[in-house]
């Protein structure tokens, strides 16, 4: 009997072990670290005290950074939806022979390092970059526009990074929709627009939802793009985690900020799940 009871756990043990070691244990370590003390010499001393947490809750700066990060991630996600949905729709619906090649090309830039792809924007948006050169060459502007090192360039960099994730999620969802449903809607008197609005869009929402969630979470957790493309007033929470750990060498406080980020993103996912059931999202990929 006991052998029968133990069997499911035995079968699950590789998954439980890997999840515990790779997911749960690191978070627990970071949580424990958040209660440690940092000495004046920059050394971390094991302790159980709430000083780091009190410092966080009493400092408006960090809340402001969290708000600013979420705002940027939200704008990035909206732009990804606007640009990504039509692209995915085209890929899923167009009668083209080389659809596979187009999808392959979309992911081709991923073969190049994220840092290098981000830095390449400097050559595009810089004072002497491609955009300014074209605009000045065509006589539309007299002097270079300031396109780099501000919130605009950060969002641009993030959209560039996130867009393929949005497109592929929506594409998978659209590709799984039974085309007969759209035909039925047309037969029953819907215009092409109504057919899209009443049938296609609702059925593709799980893919759109998954893409949006992915874009938001990845954008909010990004620190390379704001560091490389951000200006003197770019406030991004992951950058503060980097500063606390790498620059200030205050690992316990960096641990506090990391846990806060984790909880904040967890809350976003929970709220998201409340309005859009995540199981629907998972199901959309199972089709």
């Amino acid at each position: 009997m006991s052998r029968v009871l133990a069997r499911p756990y035995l079968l699950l043990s590789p998954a439980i072990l890997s999840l515990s070691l790779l997911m749960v244990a690191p978070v627990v370590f970071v949580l424990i670290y958040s209660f440690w003390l940092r000495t004046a010499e920059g050394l971390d001393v094991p302790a159980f005290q709430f000083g780091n947490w009190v410092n966080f809750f009493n400092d408006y700066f960090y809340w402001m950074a969290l708000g600013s990060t979420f705002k940027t991630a939200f704008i990035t996600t909206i732009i990804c939806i606007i640009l990504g949905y039509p692209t995915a729709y085209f890929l899923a619906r167009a009668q083209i022979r080389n659809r596979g090649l187009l999808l392959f090309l979309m992911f081709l830039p991923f073969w190049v390092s994220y840092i290098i792809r981000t830095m390449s924007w400097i050559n595009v948006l810089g004072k002497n970059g491609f955009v300014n050169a074209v605009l000045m060459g065509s006589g539309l502007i007299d002097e270079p526009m300031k396109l780099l090192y501000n919130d605009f360039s950060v969002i641009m960099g993030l959209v560039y990074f996130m867009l393929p994730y949005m497109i592929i999620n929506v594409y998978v969802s659209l590709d799984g929709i039974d085309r007969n449903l759209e035909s039925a809607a047309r037969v029953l008197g819907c215009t092409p627009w109504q057919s899209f609005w009443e049938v296609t869009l609702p059925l593709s929402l799980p893919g759109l939802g998954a893409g949006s969630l992915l874009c938001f979470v990845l954008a909010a957790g990004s620190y390379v793009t704001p560091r490389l493309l951000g200006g003197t007033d770019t406030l991004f929470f992951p950058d503060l985690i980097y500063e606390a750990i790498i620059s200030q060498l205050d690992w316990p406080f960096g641990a506090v900020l990391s846990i806060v980020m984790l909880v904040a993103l967890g809350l976003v996912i929970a709220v998201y799940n409340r309005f859009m059931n995540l199981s629907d999202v998972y199901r959309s990929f199972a089709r």
Partner: protein
Amino acid sequence: MKKLTDQKRYERLLAAVQSGDIDRRSLLRIIGATAAAVGVTGGPMGLLTRKAMAAGVESIRFDGWGGIVSEAFHNNAFPQFTEKTGTKVVEGEFGDTDEFISLVKASQPGEYNVFLVSGVYDYFRFIKMGLADFVNEANIPNLDKLLPATLAAFRNESEGKLAAVPFDYGTTGIAYNRKYISDEEAQAGHKLLWDEKYKGKIGLYDGFQTRAWMSSLYTGQDPQGATDTAAMWDATRKQRDLVLKYWGSGQEFIDLMSKEEIILSDGWSGRVAFLQQNGHDIGFIDTAQAGFAWIEGLMVLKGSPMEAAEQLINFCIEPAVAIAIAEGQNYPPSLDPTKVELTDKVKKLPGFDPTGKFDNYIWEKASYWFDNQDAYKKEWDRISKGA
């Protein structure tokens, strides 16, 4: 052998392309080779490679600043050292010392061995954090050829012992594009960095020490004894509105200046020399009203194979080797010009002191920066984020 991050790899390549060292065909060949190398050695295979390398007793790890600095060591010292002793040098790079401290803190003793420590403040804090080891001076005979002033600067911070051997020195000053700013105008020194005329064209180093130093000068205070820190940081905030970008590495500084994204910045003498050598008309002023000086040293970290580390250090300060590296990285060596004949190229490097006495140089006071580092870093990190 080389352990480079993608960013460093890119920056190095970019520098070579900008200086005309690589033609387009070679560039494409390098990109292809890099992709193949990453494919073969990246991921799990990379981990296995690292493990295999760590297991070897015949290797020692060296970490230094990226770009032209690492290039100079790589080309002029390490292969020759390996040939002479049989000990391989595993090379690594860091963008700034804080980043390197984090890596060392997270590592096992002995994982990192010798690195290029910059300035007596960094020297001091590595000792305070218990990360550095002391060398046996008897095992480094070439110490006799070094400038007594540089040796004294380190010894004074560690009760007469040496945790690092002076290797080179340089200055932080103000770099300006002569196309837009004349040498006469640059005599204004630090005040130029607050000139509204250059709004959006100024770049500054993203480091609390340089920012606090310049702002102290601007507010008429001793840069290493500011009493009105509120005024100092107010000046930094005021300056922020004029700044396009706080740069984080020497290569980023070179990139911004060479593309004329910025025309005025504080900068490091060696990097300015690199720009000048590559045809950019960049002026540099490093007087007391525009900057300060620092010594770099070869420091040994705890848990390192000390004998091999001392051997490597002694080799690097061998006059022929030190001079070759100095010419490559554009920072004068810590060799005593009264004992060693230096080349003309070295003598022309910015920041070079022919007397070797450094009478007109202002050095960092390690204890001042160490005592104030927590408060200053925290405040600077906020200001740099717009707060």
